[in-house]
């Protein structure tokens, strides 16, 4: 195993908890807004780590740029979608969760 491979593995492993946390949050959080929060934040970071991991495997700069671009686009799209869902939910009158 070369150094880059080790780094890649480490970064990939590091991304796992984020995904796990995001998924758990999606499943277990009490209301829609919390779930959205868990999903986007965790996934964005997780994906960032994956992209970072893959950058170490890239052959040339072009590929690195492409990977980064992917991350960027996903970030924007994720944020927008989360915004849209939240907006729609509020429009439909979803109540915020509060401890009673």
């Amino acid at each position, binding site marked *: 195993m070369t150094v880059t491979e080790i780094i890649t593995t480490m970064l990939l492993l590091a991304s796992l908890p984020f995904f796990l946390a995001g998924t758990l949050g999606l499943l277990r959080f009490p209301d829609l807004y919390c779930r959205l929060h868990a999903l986007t934040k965790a996934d964005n970071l997780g994906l960032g780590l994956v992209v970072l991991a893959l950058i170490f495997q890239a052959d040339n700069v072009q590929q690195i740029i492409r990977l980064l671009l992917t991350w960027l*686009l996903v970030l*924007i799209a994720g944020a*927008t*979608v989360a915004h*849209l869902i939240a*907006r729609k939910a509020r429009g439909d009158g979803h109540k915020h969760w509060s401890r009673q």
Partner: protein
Amino acid sequence: MIDLVLAFDLILMTTLISLAWLLLASRDLFRAVVLFIAFGLLLALAWTRLGAVDVALAEAAIGAGITGTLLLVGLGKLGSAERCRRTPRPTTFLQRLTPAVLIGIIIPSVTIILLLELRQLQIVSSGQQGLVLSLLDISGTDHPVTAVLLNFRAWDTLLEKGVLLLALVSIWSLDQARPLFHQEAPSPVLKGLSQLYLPILVIVSGALLWQGGYAPGGAFQAGALLSAGILLAILGGRSLLPAWYGMPLRLLAGCGLLIFILIAAATLLAGNLPLQYPQELAGALILLIEIVATVSIAVILAAAVAGGHPAEISATEQQQPPSSEGTS
């Protein structure tokens, strides 16, 4: 390592099968559709594992993306509840027996027989890849899949373009497209996103199209991406000028098949066999077909999501363009 790969394959297959079962058995149709999209993405993974990168791209873009959008839109219109079940009629013994027999006995036993027989699938050392590679030089393109798609088996592809256009004609013949929700003005964030994404999607689809000449990619994938862009633009509040609803839209949708047919006719008129391109023109012809097809595919797919023929121009000029809500 081999075993690890095999284990990965097995996990993938198990996941696919259980996903399929779960989504079909799921009571909530929204969940089923979301699972179906996940299924499509995992399927793309499986295609990659089997060395079919083109198919994986197409599956992700078309199988999961567009089909998923279609299903979601359809779900929005249909609703999840099963309405109008067939009222139970007095049935004879035979009638009651048939479905039970079919489902309970035939399907599992046929499956098992097929699975057992499948072991005999001879491991032929090669399929037609040798033949394809040996003819690749004169095919006009460097990517084997594109060569097969647009030259060796171009007749299939022509007909498949026909299927696409036919589907559009069918959808248009059924109903007029109507906006699903008369919602308030789209969110400025969405507008911004669509403004940002549209150029990117156009560029990427162009790149994919070009890439089809030497690497995985091509008209389908590019077309699917472009149609996603169109849908996004519509979501972002852009609309087609009503003047475009008529001939221009139809021309855009029909040009893919039309060009292909014209080329086929030209090969015949030139005294060649059907779809036998002159060798020096092959590359150019393939590129031409691909470019036109991309546009055509994009328009057809976007129109299919809109789900109906455009409003008559004279009738209601202020009518909103077909819009959809893929992500609600």
